[in-house]
C-alpha cells in the first residue's frame, strides 16, 4: 500500500538547470523520502546545451551531450516522462496536466522551463530554410537542410549568434552574421572589444555585417525556400538558409496560465529562495525573474538557483541574491572574457585600454576614481582573466596600465596571484577564496573559518582541488590555483621541485638547452656533468633515460650523437617500444606499423602487407591514422617481417616512438569535386619531411583539401587546411581523452611558407615542451600561449628562427630508415630473440586463440604465473 504521507514534487522542464536541481535534491536525501515526477518536453533527457555546437565542430554525438549520469533516475526513484510537456497547472487543486493527459497532484511544483528563441517579426521568417538554434532537434534540422545549400546567415551577433555561426561554419557553409548593433556581442564587450572580435571572426572566414537590420527574408515563389535577406542598408544578401539568434525570452506561459506574477518583459517573479508568490511553487533557471530583478541567460546562475531551491525544499537555508555575469568563453575558437562593470557604468570611472589590431587582441580595464578595479573586457588574450576577476573590487597592487599590457609586450611587472587579497574569490563557480586555498595548503596565518592552519596540508593542486572544490567546475581558475599553491608551498619552506626526476633537477626544456649549447652527445656525459649531486655516475631511471634519448635523437646531427636510436649507448636508453622498433602489446607480443605516407598506397604494396600478415599469422587492423597495424609478432619474428616489408619498399612508421606518426589526408582536388588543393601530395611531402623526428610526445598531423575538413586536421598537433589561396596552418589540436580544437597559426600560405612555418613550430615545441607534453597542453601552458608562439615562429621575436630551420634541415638530411638500418647491422639484430640462451625458441607465454577469423592474445590466468607473495 502506498504511504499516504509521502509528498510529491513535480519538476516541469528537464534542461540543464532542472537536472542540476534533481542532483541537488538527491544529494540532500530528498528523493529518498519524496515522490519526484519530471515532465520533459524534449524527446530526450537533459543535455549540455552550452556545448551544442561541439556536435558540428568536434563531432560529439547527441548521446555524448547528455548530462544525466547512467542510471541516475532509477537509482533515485525519479519518474521521468520524456516527450510529455506540462500544458496546465491548477494551483487550487495543486495538479499539473501533461499533453498526454497525465495529471499529477503536487505538494511542491518547480518550474525550470528555460527560454525560447525570439524570432523578430520579419516577412518570410517562416519560410523553408529559416531556423532557430536551441535544441538538438534544431541542430539536426539545420544539418539536414544545410546539406542542400552553400551558404547561410545568422541573424544576431551575440553570444548565441556566434555559436550558431560556428555551427554553420562547422557544416562547411559560407557563413554570414548580421547584427543590428554596431558591434558583435554588444552585451558583453565594448566597441574596442567588438572590433577585435570582429577581426578574429573574419579571419576565420565568417562575414560580419554590423549596424544593419534584417528587413525581409526573400523566398523563392515556386519552392517556398529561402533565397536571401533584404537588409536595412538596401542591399540583398543571397543565402540558402537563415538562423535566428536574436535573443531569448523566458518560457513563462504555464505560470501566466495559472495566475502567477510575471515581469513586464517576461520571467516568473521569485524571491531569494526562488519561490513564487505561491509558497508551493518555485521557478529556477532562465524562466525565472530573480529577486534582483534580472533574468539570467547563463547556466552558472541557473545552477545557483537550482541549489537554492533544493536547499529550501530540504528545509535548509539558502538564498539567490544575484550572480556575477563574468564570463570566459571560446566562441568560434576566439577567447572572450568580460567581468564586473565591463561597460564602465559607475560614476567617474576610467578606462585603461590596450588594443593590437594586427593580432586581434583587446584588453580593457575599468578603474574607479580611487583606483579600484571595477571590471574589464578581454578579447583574444584572456590569460589574465583568472587573476583580474578576483581582483575586482580591490585596488590592484600595480598600476592598471601594467595590467593591460600582454606578457612580453613590455609589461614591467608580471602580476602574480600573491597580489590577491585573502578575501578575493579565486574560484567563482564554487566560491572559494584565496584565504581558503592558503588554509588548505596550511600556509602561514591563513586559517580561514572552520580550519586552523596546518589542519590540511595539501601539497599539490590535485589535493587542493579535492579539499576545497576550487577549480573543479569550469576550470578557468586552475592556472592561478597552481601558482597560488606553488607560492604557498614555497613560503612554507616546502621546496617545489620542477626537476625531471630524482636524477635531474632541470626540466626537459632546460636539459635540451644544455645539450644544444654544450653539444653534449651522450646521456652519461649529461648525467655525470649536470645530474643532481647524488645521481652523478649512477644509473638514472626509466623517466630520464628515454627523455634524454629523445633530446639526443632530435639533436643528433648537431651534437654528434649517433643518428640511429639503437646505436651504442642510445640503445640502452630507449623505451621498450623504441628498443624493439615495435609496439609491445599486453601479452608481450609486438605490433608492426609500416609507414604509408598520407594514407596513399599502391595495390602491390597492399598485397605485400596482406601476404606478410597471412604468412606470419598476424592480426590486422586499420588504424585511425590511415595505415595498417599488424599485431601478434614475437620478438624474433620482427626482423623477418621487416626484411620482407623493407624489400617491398616500406619504412618504419614510428608507431612506437614519441615521434611523428602520420599525416592523414583526404583525397583532395585530384578526385574530389570540392577540393581546392592537392592535399594528398602535401600530406606525403610533410610526412616524408618529418618522419623519424623525435619529440617530447607523439606528433600527429593531417591535411584537408578544402574547408569541409574531411581529414580532421583541426584535431592534430599540426593540421593543414587548403584554401583557394594556399594553406591554413592550425596547431595544438588533440583528440583522445582531452580533445582540443587546434588554433589557427597562419593562413593562405604558399607551399614553401607552410613548410618553413611547420619547421619552426615543431622545433620550437621540441625545444620548450616538457616530457610527454602534447602540443595542446604545451600551447596552454607556455606563458603567452598561442600569441607568444606566433610571435616567435611567425615574427621571429626571439631571433631564433634561422636556428630552428637549420636544426630541421639537419634532421631531414640525417634521416635514415631505422628498420633498414637495423637489418643491416648484425649487432643490433642479435637482440631480437626471446631467449639469449635459446635464440630459436619462441616465448611460450605468448599464446593466441582464434577470434572472428584472426588471432587474439590468450587470456592469462594470473594465479598460474610466478607471483611470489611476500
Amino acid at each position: 500500500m502506498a504511504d499516504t504521507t509521502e509528498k510529491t514534487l513535480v519538476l516541469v522542464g528537464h534542461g540543464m538547470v532542472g537536472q542540476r536541481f534533481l542532483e541537488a535534491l538527491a544529494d540532500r536525501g530528498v528523493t529518498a523520502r519524496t515522490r519526484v515526477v519530471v515532465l520533459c518536453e524534449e524527446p530526450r533527457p537533459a543535455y549540455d546545451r552550452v556545448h551544442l555546437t561541439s556536435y558540428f565542430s568536434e563531432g560529439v554525438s547527441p548521446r555524448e551531450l547528455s548530462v544525466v549520469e547512467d542510471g541516475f533516475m532509477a537509482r533515485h526513484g525519479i519518474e521521468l516522462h520524456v516527450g510529455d510537456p506540462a500544458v496546465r497547472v491548477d494551483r487550487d487543486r495543486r495538479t499539473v496536466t501533461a499533453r498526454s493527459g497525465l495529471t499529477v497532484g503536487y505538494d511542491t511544483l518547480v518550474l525550470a522551463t528555460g527560454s525560447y528563441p525570439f524570432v523578430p517579426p520579419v516577412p518570410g521568417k517562416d519560410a523553408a530554410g529559416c531556423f532557430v538554434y536551441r535544441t538538438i532537434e534544431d541542430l539536426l534540422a539545420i544539418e539536414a537542410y544545410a546539406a542542400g545549400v552553400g551558404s547561410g546567415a545568422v541573424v544576431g551577433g551575440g553570444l548565441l549568434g556566434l555559436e550558431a555561426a560556428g555551427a554553420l561554419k562547422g557544416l562547411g557553409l559560407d557563413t554570414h552574421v548580421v547584427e543590428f548593433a554596431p558591434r558583435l556581442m554588444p552585451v558583453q564587450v565594448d566597441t574596442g572589444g567588438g572590433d577585435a572580435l570582429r577581426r578574429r571572426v573574419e579571419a576565420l572566414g565568417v562575414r560580419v555585417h554590423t549596424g544593419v537590420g534584417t528587413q525581409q527574408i526573400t523566398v523563392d515563389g515556386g519552392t517556398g525556400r529561402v533565397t536571401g535577406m533584404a537588409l536595412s542598408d538596401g542591399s540583398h544578401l543571397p543565402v540558402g538558409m537563415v538562423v535566428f539568434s536574436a535573443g531569448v525570452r523566458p518560457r513563462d506561459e504555464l505560470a501566466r496560465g495559472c495566475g502567477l506574477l510575471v515581469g513586464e518583459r517576461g520571467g516568473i517573479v521569485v524571491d531569494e529562495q526562488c519561490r513564487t508568490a505561491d509558497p508551493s511553487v518555485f521557478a529556477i533557471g532562465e524562466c525565472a525573474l530573480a529577486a534582483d530583478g534580472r533574468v539570467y541567460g547563463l547556466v552558472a546562475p541557473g545552477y545557483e538557483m537550482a541549489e537554492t531551491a533544493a536547499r529550501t525544499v530540504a528545509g535548509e537555508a539558502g538564498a539567490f541574491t544575484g550572480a556575477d555575469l563574468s564570463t570566459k568563453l571560446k566562441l568560434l575558437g576566439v577567447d572572450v572574457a568580460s567581468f564586473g562593470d565591463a561597460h564602465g557604468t559607475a560614476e567617474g570611472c576610467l578606462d585603461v585600454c590596450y588594443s593590437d589590431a594586427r593580432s586581434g587582441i583587446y584588453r580593457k580595464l575599468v578603474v574607479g576614481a580611487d583606483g579600484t578595479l571595477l571590471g574589464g573586457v578581454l578579447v583574444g588574450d584572456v590569460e589574465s582573466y583568472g587573476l583580474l576577476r578576483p581582483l575586482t573590487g580591490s585596488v590592484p597592487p600595480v598600476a592598471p596600465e601594467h595590467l593591460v599590457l600582454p606578457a612580453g609586450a613590455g609589461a614591467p611587472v608580471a602580476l602574480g596571484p600573491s597580489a590577491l587579497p585573502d578575501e578575493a574569490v579565486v574560484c567563482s563557480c564554487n566560491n572559494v577564496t584565496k584565504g581558503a586555498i592558503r588554509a588548505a595548503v596550511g600556509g602561514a596565518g591563513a586559517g580561514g573559518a572552520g580550519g586552523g592552519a596546518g589542519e590540511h596540508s595539501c601539497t599539490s593542486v590535485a589535493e587542493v582541488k579535492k579539499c576545497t572544490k576550487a577549480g573543479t567546475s569550469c576550470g578557468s581558475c586552475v592556472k592561478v590555483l597552481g601558482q597560488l599553491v606553488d607560492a604557498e608551498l614555497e613560503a612554507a619552506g616546502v621546496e617545489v621541485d620542477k626537476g625531471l626526476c630524482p636524477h635531474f633537477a632541470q626540466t626537459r626544456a632546460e636539459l635540451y638547452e644544455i645539450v644544444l649549447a654544450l653539444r653534449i652527445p651522450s646521456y652519461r656525459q649529461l648525467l655525470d656533468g649536470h645530474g643532481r649531486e647524488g645521481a652523478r655516475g649512477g644509473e638514472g631511471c626509466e623517466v630520464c633515460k628515454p627523455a634524454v634519448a629523445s633530446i639526443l635523437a632530435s639533436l643528433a646531427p648537431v651534437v654528434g650523437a649517433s643518428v640511429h636510436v639503437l646505436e651504442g649507448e642510445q640503445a640502452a636508453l630507449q623505451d621498450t617500444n623504441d628498443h624493439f622498433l615495435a609496439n609491445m602489446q599486453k601479452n608481450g607480443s609486438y605490433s608492426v606499423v609500416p609507414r604509408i605516407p598520407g594514407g596513399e598506397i599502391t595495390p602491390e604494396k597492399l598485397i605485400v602487407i596482406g601476404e606478410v600478415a597471412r604468412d606470419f599469422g598476424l592480426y590486422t587492423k586499420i588504424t585511425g591514422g590511415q595505415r595498417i597495424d599488424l599485431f601478434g609478432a614475437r620478438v624474433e619474428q620482427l626482423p623477418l617481417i621487416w626484411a620482407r616489408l623493407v624489400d617491398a619498399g616500406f619504412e618504419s612508421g614510428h608507431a612506437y616512438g614519441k615521434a611523428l606518426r602520420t599525416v592523414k589526408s583526404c583525397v583532395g582536388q585530384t578526385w574530389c569535386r570540392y577540393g581546392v588543393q592537392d592535399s594528398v601530395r602535401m600530406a606525403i611531402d610533410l610526412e616524408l619531411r618529418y618522419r623519424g623526428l623525435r619529440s617530447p610526445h607523439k606528433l600527429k598531423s593531417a591535411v584537408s583539401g578544402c574547408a569541409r575538413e574531411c581529414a580532421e586536421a583541426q584535431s592534430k598537433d599540426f593540421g593543414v587546411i587548403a584554401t583557394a589561396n594556399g594553406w591554413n596552418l592550425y596547431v595544438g589540436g588533440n583528440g583522445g581523452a582531452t580533445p582540443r580544437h587546434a588554433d589557427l597559426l597562419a593562413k593562405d600560405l604558399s607551399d614553401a611558407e607552410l613548410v618553413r612555418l611547420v619547421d619552426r613550430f615543431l622545433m620550437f615545441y621540441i625545444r620548450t615542451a616538457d616530457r610527454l607534453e602534447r602540443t595542446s597542453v604545451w600551447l596552454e601552458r607556455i606563458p603567452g600561449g598561442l600569441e607568444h608562439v606566433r610571435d616567435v615562429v611567425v615574427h621571429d621575436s626571439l631571433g631564433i628562427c634561422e636556428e630552428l630551420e637549420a636544426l630541421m634541415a639537419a634532421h631531414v638530411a640525417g634521416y635514415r630508415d631505422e628498420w633498414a638500418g637495423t637489418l643491416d647491422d648484425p649487432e643490433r639484430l642479435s637482440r631480437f630473440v626471446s631467449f639469449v640462451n635459446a635464440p630459436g625458441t619462441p616465448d611460450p607465454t605468448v599464446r593466441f586463440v582464434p577470434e572472428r577469423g584472426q588471432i587474439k592474445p590468450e587470456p592469462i590466468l594470473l594465479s598460474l604465473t610466478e607471483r611470489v607473495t611476500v
Partner: protein
Amino acid sequence: MTTMTDLLSPAAAPSVPGTVELHVGGRWLAVCAAEALLPGRGVAALLPDGRQAALFRDRAGRTYAIGNVDPFTGAGVLSHGLVGAVGDRPYVASPLLKQRFDLVDGRCLDDEAVAVATYPVRVR
C-alpha cells in the same frame, strides 16, 4: 622466406671473453656471452625447468637476475624494461604497466605484496 640465420652474420658473434652464468637447480648454467649484456638493458634466458629469468648489468658492471614474467600481466617481459635506481638500489620498470622491481631482492617497489624470484648470477 628469409630466416633468422640468414640475417645473423658471423660478425654478431661475441668477441670479448667472459660468460654469464646463472645458479639454478643446484648448478651454474651458462647463459650468454658477457658482451650480450648491455649496461642498463636486460636479456631473457629460458631455464631448464621452463621458467624464465631476466638478466641485467648496471653501469658499474654488476650483474643481476630475477624472474622474467611480470606478475601483474603474466607476460614474459621484465627483461625488456628499463633499468633505474633509487639511491644505489637498481630496479627494472616493467614495460607494460611500469611497476618497478628491485634487482637485488625481487620485491616490487610499487606493491609490497608482490615479488619475483631472484637468481644468483656471475661472470666467468
